[in-house]
């Protein structure tokens, strides 16, 4: 129906063209327009963030309700979330409004530091192990391309750590490996990255165009 799909698409088009134009008009009125739209966007997106939180919780609720395999673990999501929300709202009696002056840190901060920070750091640091084993097992100079990859990786790995300066010192030039790494980064690496960047940028522009002209509509979601 036109008010469900057409008008939103017209709005998309109008705002898109206005945004495009705004970039070329430095007049204070245009700046004011920019400010208004971006102010609105900030406020609207504040609500969107709650939407994200809701849908995550919703997923775990339905997992528990349907008793999918491993549903009991979803309970811990609730324990964590509710615990943090209660601690955050209470915030050692201060309420969620201001940061607490308690020199020890609030219980809310405590939960953040001891669970969120350490869990996520630990989880990511697991990657160090995976990367090591994968590199060991799969980095083979099978052909010229792979050989270039392996050699560049080895040189950069060595040149980026401080021991390379000690080894370089034995050779009489502490910075020699660092300089080679810099040469790799500054020339072949940068050439490739720039080529990729230019291509990707064109792709992004084309995608934006399709959105403005209503050719790409998948972001509107399903339904009529």
């Amino acid at each position, binding site marked *: 129906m036109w008010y469900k799909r057409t*008008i*939103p698409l017209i709005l*998309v088009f*109008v*705002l*898109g*063209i206005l*945004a*495009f134009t705004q*970039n070329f008009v430095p007049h204070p009125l245009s700046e004011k327009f920019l400010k208004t739209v971006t102010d609105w966007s900030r406020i*609207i997106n*504040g*609500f969107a*963030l709650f939407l994200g*939180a809701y849908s*995550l919780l919703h997923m775990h609720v339905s997992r528990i309700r349907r008793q999918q395999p491993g549903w009991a673990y979803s309970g*811990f*999501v*609730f*324990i*964590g*979330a*509710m615990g*943090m*929300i209660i601690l*955050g709202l209470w915030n050692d009696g201060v309420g*969620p409004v201001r940061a607490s002056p308690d020199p020890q*840190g609030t*219980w809310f901060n405590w*939960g*953040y*530091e*001891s*669970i*969120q920070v*350490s*869990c996520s750091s*630990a*989880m990511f640091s*697991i990657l160090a192990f995976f990367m090591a084993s994968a590199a060991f097992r799969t980095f083979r100079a099978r052909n010229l391309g792979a050989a*270039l*990859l392996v050699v*560049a990786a080895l040189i950069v*790995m060595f040149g*980026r750590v401080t021991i390379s300066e000690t080894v370089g010192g034995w050779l009489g030039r502490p910075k020699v490996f660092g300089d080679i790494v810099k040469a*790799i*980064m500054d020339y*072949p*690496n940068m*050439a*490739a*990255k*720039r*080529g990729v*960047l230019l*291509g990707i940028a064109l792709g*992004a522009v084309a995608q*934006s165009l399709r959105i403005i002209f209503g050719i790409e509509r998948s972001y*509107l979601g399903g*339904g009529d």
Partner: protein
Amino acid sequence: MAQAETPASDTRRTIEVIILIALVSAFLVVSLLVHKPFGPGNLTKEMVGTVIAAAVTLIMYSFLYRDNPLFKIAENLYVGVALGYGSIMIWRQSLLPEVFEPLFLAPTRDAFWSALAARGIPIVLGLLLLTRLSRKHSWLSRYSYGPLVGWGAGMAIVLTFHTSILKQLQAAIAPLQEGITNSSFGENLAFGERLGQWLAQVGLPVLGALVLLVGTTAVLFYFFFSVEHKRLGKATANVGIWFLMISFGATFGYTVMGRLSLLIDRVDFLLFEWLKITR
């Protein structure tokens, strides 16, 4: 990672459970010995936090052996805590200062009306966004995010063009060698020195600039889909691939450092804060 099921898995599982229990008790014993929570004033928030942090860190590492219930518990707990923290922070940092305070804590009546004028419409639009949760009325939310998507797309066209294309082209289109104006010295130097001077001022910069030129063009060509890669085209595309490979290698070399430093951070925590080894 889960292992394939084998007939022997029952005994194996028993052994694993025993080992797990042993490890957990060992953890508790070590924590108790190191932190000595007994006695007045010894049991602090900080200490409990450190022990919990150490526990979840080690549980995470148990994933290296394989996926296990403790890992799943810790992971889900983490997801929950992150969710809770995020919600509180969004409330504190977004809705409270943007919606609640300007309207309900306006210092004067005049301030209230001006806040309502400035924020009324976006607040309504924001509320409309919540209709996404309903299947029937979700089209209403298009009125709030549709224009924003369009706005973002319009902005992105110009700004991407400016930042990623023009600025990059501007940098890429540079003479291989800016003319050297001062040729006064170097008249009566030895050959080696003159060669060195020439290399420093002309040879190597030109070489570097050539590498950049060839590399950028070849990589662009590799991602060019409208012609078949044959003969010269194939050669160029191959050069492009080599450049890509070198850059992937360089990225990998860098990444290694990143991932390992995450591990170093955790080891630092476990050794110095949990086990309290003196530096």
